[in-house]
């Protein structure tokens, strides 16, 4: 297993190189000069030229690419063209926000999606089944932006139950010094339950918004995986033995249906890291998603290049972990 792990790890190297090349080329495909975009309608031709020089845009493409890769290899993710703050510093500060949100969204998806899928499977073709599957279809097709604003207007503006955005309320935020950057953890470490409540309140709506699509997908995958397993002989045997239905469902059927579900959870978590862009924007969530989004708007190449690279790295690593977790679930899977 260790050699498999190592081989997979080595295999990531060309993948990551490919990603750097793709990101680089995509950015170059966007028409227009970033120097002009950064300076806007007020930039004079001389200023544009000076900024091009500064950003290294005058050099040939391969040279620009090599310079980018060389910097990344030495751990230097470059400097934002707009703020001049090192991108690495900014990503380091922001990733806990994104990670915490993605984790919360995954929790929402798992805790609601899997039970919904199981129920739909065991009550196949009932009202419950139809209802939950229709809802999951709505969930998948609902535009994130729209859903987010809908939730904000309902729960924050009208009902005043939850805050409209941010990670902390204004007052809790004054003088707050993050320790780990994971605010839930920070609040627990301080034993400050008021702060914890504040942090959790701020997490609810964005996690729900971000978690809706994976929730819907998970519900559907769980349902079909369960249906398949439930029709198997060993389930029939279990029932024939006179086992309680609860035992049959959870011990026999669900454990075996878990494999595809875990794959999807892992993949969805990976996409959440990158896909948080819209959610983070609506909820003023200071994570990597909103950072990359701004980078794209501002033509801030170093931000986009390095930001996407880091997200991609997280994504492939999570996939690797998902693959490894198969062994725990299904001993028949061999690593070679």
């Amino acid at each position: 297993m260790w050699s498999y792990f190592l081989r997979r790890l080595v295999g990531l190297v060309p993948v990551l190189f490919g990603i750097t090349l793709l990101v680089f080329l995509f950015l170059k495909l966007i028409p227009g000069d970033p120097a002009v975009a950064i300076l806007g309608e007020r930039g004079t031709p001389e200023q544009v030229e000076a900024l091009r020089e500064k950003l290294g845009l005058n050099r040939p493409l391969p040279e620009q690419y090599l310079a980018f890769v060389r910097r990344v290899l030495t751990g230097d993710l470059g400097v934002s063209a707009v703020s001049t703050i090192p991108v690495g510093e900014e990503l380091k500060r922001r990733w806990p926000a994104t990670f915490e949100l993605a984790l919360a969204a995954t929790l929402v998806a798992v805790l609601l999606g899997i039970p919904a899928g199981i129920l739909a499977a065991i009550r196949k073709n009932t009202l419950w089944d139809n209802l939950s599957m229709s809802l999951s279809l709505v969930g998948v097709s609902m535009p994130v932006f729209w859903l987010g604003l809908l939730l904000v207007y309902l729960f924050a503006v009208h009902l005043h139950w939850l805050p409209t955005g941010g990670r902390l309320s204004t007052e809790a935020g004054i003088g707050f010094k993050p320790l780990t950057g994971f605010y839930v953890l920070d609040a627990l470490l301080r034993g400050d339950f008021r702060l914890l409540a504040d942090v959790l309140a701020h997490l609810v709506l964005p996690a729900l918004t971000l978690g809706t699509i994976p929730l819907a997908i998970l519900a559907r995958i769980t349902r079909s995986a369960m249906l398949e397993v439930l029709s198997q002989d060993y389930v029939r045997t279990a029932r024939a033995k006179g086992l309680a239905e609860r035992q049959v469902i959870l011990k026999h059927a669900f454990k075996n249906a878990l494999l595809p579900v875990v794959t999807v959870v892992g993949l969805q978590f990976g996409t959440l890291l990158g896909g948080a862009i819209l959610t983070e924007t609506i909820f003023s969530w200071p994570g990597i998603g909103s950072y990359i989004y701004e980078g794209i708007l501002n033509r801030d190449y170093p931000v986009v290049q390095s930001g996407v690279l880091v997200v991609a790295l997280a994504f492939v690593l999570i996939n690797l972990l998902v693959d490894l977790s198969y062994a725990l679930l299904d001993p028949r899977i061999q690593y070679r």
Partner: protein
Amino acid sequence: MKRTLIGILAVGALGLGLGQKTLVFGHNGEPVSLEPGNITDGISIYVQRQIYDTLVDFKPGTTEPVAGLAVSWFASQDGKVWTFRLRQGVKFQDGTDLDAEAVKFNVERWWDPKNPTRIDAAARYEIWPKLFGGSKGEAGSLLKEVQVVDKYTIRFVLTRPFPAFPAAIGSGYFGIASPSAIKKDGAKYGSPTGSAVGTGPYRLVEWRPGDQIVLEKNPYYWKKGYPKTERVVFKIIKDPAARLAALKAGTIDFTTDIPPANLKDIESDPNLNAVFRPSFNVGYLALNPSHKPLADVRVRQAIAMAINKKAIVQAFWGKLGVTDGHFTPPSMKAYQSPKVTDYEYNPQKAKQILAEAGYPNGFDLELWYMPVSRPYFPTPKEIAEAMAADLSAIGIRVKLQTKDWAAYLADRRKAPGFQAYMLGWTGDYGDPQNFYDPHFASPITDLFDASGKPLDLKELNDLLVKGATTSSAEERKKIYQQVDETTFELALRVPIVHSQPLLAKRKNIAGWVPSPLGSESFETIEKR
């Protein structure tokens, strides 16, 4: 259980409440830097304005210069030497004194690329050369020398007369910062991990990027009785819809940059007020003479006459825009010619003029609209469509075009340029030069003559040079009124709108006077 959970969350959400001692401003973005003179974005300046004072201030709600850190100023006979008398007894927020040396320190830093206290990794400081012709050592540099005359007197020696100097040095870019704080912080100064120290009403307490910036009352502030509120929090909410929701929910007290379409929504909410920032911009349609029909001034005037600007402004801006034929916004009335009244909307007459110019059947025209929304053109495509419809009524067959913003900006300068395009300008300071020179000073780098050379307008250019160098205020007014008339008749850039940015506040916020210049002090604002 469920009820308890919601209860806990609700307590967390509402918290203790901030009471009247804290103003929460919903800001539309993250400042790039809190170091003055180094950036040009309004988002940063808005925060800086609370921390720093400038030499010259402006009467609230206007562009009229009044005493700031300088109590008085005057120019030498030849208009080349400006002397400023500083206010005495002013302290920076770190307790050090404001004096002429401190001002010189700031100016040298902005002006001199070799200044050792410049954070050169960033190498910005682009606003100084933009407004003052160049940096130290460059041929175009307006500034020749900055001298400390005595402890409270500072003198600027210029290479040429520049009557707009007080207005320009008073612009929000040039807040005076504490030299000792800059020396102490080095490259960190003005960043989230460093300090930002001025003489303004509020001092920086903390800046948590992406989240909020906390400012507290400056105990040393020189204006007695101000600021009215103990604390200001800038809460960063970039998305306009989210910002409006936060205002409605009461998370924030007042905010900026609301989409014009939300005006009705705000006016119908009993807890909110719409607040209008006086216009300080122009959105125009540029007509490029390199396209043969547009080389004829009559054709350009016919176009100006054929576009129903009043109807367009009414439709797309409502209360949030005016159209008056002037290139400068209404807040600069003193420089506008009373003779300039906009071309009347008259398609019949326009058609007739077009026929006289030799185009009885009209012609084809490519009209470029911006791919992005700007304060002066919030919905460029729809506005372009409306103009195209008006033009088709006089036989001009418009083909609407656009491209990526960066390419749009760059390509308009590549000969022969776009035939017709939309763009605009927001002023830096309250002087007509800042509006006219970037658009009409020869050669005009984005409009071309028939042979494809950048357009050169000798007469207008002479007028602009005269305006830029004449010391007498009365004389200057006359010159710019003439410029107003000339540019109006030339119709190379047809002013479509001066738009008012829409702001909003909760009803209990009082004393907010938005400045046309884009940022104002919060010192007079209080929560009732």
